[in-house]
């Protein structure tokens, strides 16, 4: 494999890591009004992702930074082409990050309820928008020879793309519920378990629909494997969480999200941003990539440091491996 292809794979890996990790913390945030009955429940939920959500989000920062370095034209056309949705995602991520940090800092119900609204909106919106945007990447955008995207914000809302958005949103809710079943104890755990199992009835058809559409539209032979694995893993995960096998259930939903991301990038290959105007105008791995020297440099840096990052992030998950429950939440903030 040549270096640009290696970097396409590396960026796919970073995005996969991001969607698997922040997927569940989006889900937890969006599920606040669904699974919590009182403020203590909400704090159980928020504290379950408290130590890790920021680290999860850095996968996004790294994926985007790596795209800038390895495929400048892709970075430029994608971010300027998805201008308004990207803006919404940024606003959501800002609000949500501040909300986690600030909601417990003033002992007032009004204060907390307001931040809860920000957390729910700030988690729901990007969970939907990432699906919408990735589906649009697979579908392609109107783009001329100058690689300037001309699709408007409204033009992004096609049937296929909206299906993609609904899928990521619902899939992240389920993934988040399974995470809560795994990481909390008490009433939240039970509610999360049943939510995860029942919501699978809605998520599975969406997943089958999107995966089938993607495979039919732009899949190749081998992408059938992640497509099928994604569906199977989700079904298995729902079954396992229903039977209380939460650890394995979370592994399964993580695999489902991960293989879905692999399917998306596999369908994109060898393009990075297909043009609907004329396939000849598409941004491809070849024409968007940085020169070999830059790719070599960042390859070495990544080869050394990414394993280290994964190591200490895994350690951090291990440190906070215990379930969070209501009796651990102190009364005072």
């Amino acid at each position: 494999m040549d270096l640009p292809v290696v970097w396409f794979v590396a960026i796919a890996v970073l995005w996969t890591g991001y969607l698997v990790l922040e997927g569940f913390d989006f889900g937890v945030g969006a599920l606040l009004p669904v699974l919590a009955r009182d403020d203590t429940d909400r704090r159980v939920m928020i504290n379950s992702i408290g130590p890790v959500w920021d680290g999860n989000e850095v996968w996004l920062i790294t994926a985007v930074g790596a795209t800038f370095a390895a495929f400048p034209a892709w970075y430029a056309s994608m971010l300027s082409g998805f201008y308004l949705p990207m803006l919404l995602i940024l606003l959501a991520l800002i609000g949500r990050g501040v909300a986690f940090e600030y909601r417990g800092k003033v002992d007032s119900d009004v204060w907390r309820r307001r931040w809860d609204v920000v957390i729910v909106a700030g988690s729901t919106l990007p969970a939907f928008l990432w699906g919408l945007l990735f589906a649009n990447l697979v579908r392609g955008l109107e783009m001329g020879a100058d690689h300037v995207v001309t699709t408007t914000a409204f033009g992004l809302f096609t049937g296929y793309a909206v299906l993609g958005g609904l899928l990521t949103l619902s899939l992240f809710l389920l993934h988040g519920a399974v995470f809560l079943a795994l990481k909390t104890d008490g009433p939240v755990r039970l509610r999360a378990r049943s939510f995860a199992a029942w919501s699978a009835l809605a998520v599975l058809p969406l997943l089958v629909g999107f995966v089938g559409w993607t495979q039919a539209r732009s899949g190749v032979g081998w992408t059938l494997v992640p497509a099928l694995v994604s569906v199977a893993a989700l079904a298995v995960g729902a079954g396992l969480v229903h039977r209380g096998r939460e650890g394995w259930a979370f592994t399964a939903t993580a695999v489902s999200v991960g293989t879905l991301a692999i399917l998306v990038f596999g369908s994109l290959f060898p393009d990075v941003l297909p043009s609907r105007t004329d396939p000849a105008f598409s941004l491809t791995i070849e024409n968007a990539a940085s020169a070999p020297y830059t790719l070599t440099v960042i390859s070495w840096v990544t080869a050394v440091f990414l394993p280290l990052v994964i190591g200490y992030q895994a350690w951090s998950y291990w440190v906070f491996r215990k379930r969070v429950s209501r009796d651990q939440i102190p009364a005072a903030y």
Partner: protein
Amino acid sequence: MALDLARWQFGITTIYHFLFVPLTIGLSVVVASLQTAWHRTGRTEYLRATKFFGKLFLINFAMGVVTGIVQEFQFGMNWSDYSTFVGDVFGAPLAMEALLAFFLESTFIGLWIFGWDKLPRRVHLACIWAAAIGTNLSAYFILAANAWMRHPVGFEIDPVTGQARLTSIWAVLSNDQAWSTYLHVVSAAFIAAGLFVAAVSAYKLLKNVEPREHELFRKSMRAGFVVTAIAGVVVAVSGDHQAKLMARYEPMKLASAEALWDDEHAAGFSIFAVGDIQDGRNHVNIQIPGVLAFLATGDFEGDVQGINDIQARYEQVFGPGTYIPNVGLLYWAFRMMMGLGLAGVAISLVGLWLTRRGRLFRWDWQYRLVVAALPAALLANIFGWILTEMGRQPWTVVGELLTANSVSPGVSLTEVAISLSAFTLLYAVLAVIELGLLFRYVKAGTAAVMPYPAEDEPEPEKTDDRVPAFVY
């Protein structure tokens, strides 16, 4: 028009981001040092100070993190032509920043916040240091990227695509403009952080609500002064070096910051000038002879280039056009940066003298002056960036790419207007909330983060505190 709005957005979001960044850079080290002192001595006072300043640090840290995300996306969203042109060079340090620094910072800050009762004390202490190192490391990468825009090195222009292509990452990372800027920016950050600690302490000493925390704040105020004084030395030395690099790499910026219109031998440093920018000359200019020449070249008899002459030379090299930045703004930004920054350092030095050997200030206004030094230091940081970035105009990459050619061609005026308004509005709301929270925690004092024992119980000299930390 879209260009102007995109520039406004970059200015507003970056300045806003940089209100939090210097405090994060400096306070992470201050808090880590306080916790180290507690770890070494076991004295309750240090733990209480760690928790108190740690809380303020975290309130500020959150804002720095979330406003930082915008910066990374903004290049692609508003400046796509810039991004395509520089990505091969500029992207590498950004990717490294995320991989080496951001992961470190975010993971270990999580471990620190939530790990008080879960980690061995030594490991927990290491976490705050890891976060502090991550923060200070991230500054290097982003400043190396920024330095490259002002003094591009280690690249060539691809003859086919016309884009910049990295030829030596080492040249980019060891750029003299990069490490010189790093020293200057980070020491300025420590001035701000030192004054933050001093200002908070001075406020608490002034109000004097809780007598038991009096001694703690007297010490922390002095500690803040010491940090600022030491950083003040580094800022002055690196600032001098920055001026020399500016004379060499960006003579137009230096000339504009000095309102020096024509090439001059043994040029003087302007104290106050009123000029005519259209006409390219000053009406009034009060100067100290030879000082600018010394600042720029290290020789009182040195030659310094002037705006009109540089403009003529640039037209020869780059073709017709205006290569003069906003002279009036740069002239005053330069003076505000130096004046406010040095005022903060001076207040610290005098403060150290006045509080020597257990003494305290005699007058309330002295405390108030210390409180006022904090916004002054933050403003000095901002003026420094205005000088740096506005002084680089009309270029984004000096000599290589004009700002006018950097903007996203496909993004409409409406889109930038929406984005600019959304960020401005959100940032304004968050500023009010953030300041309110900081003020609330400063007011509540150390007892709010770590209660004092009841009246009849003596405060234990040493504490081994392992409270559960479900802080959210």
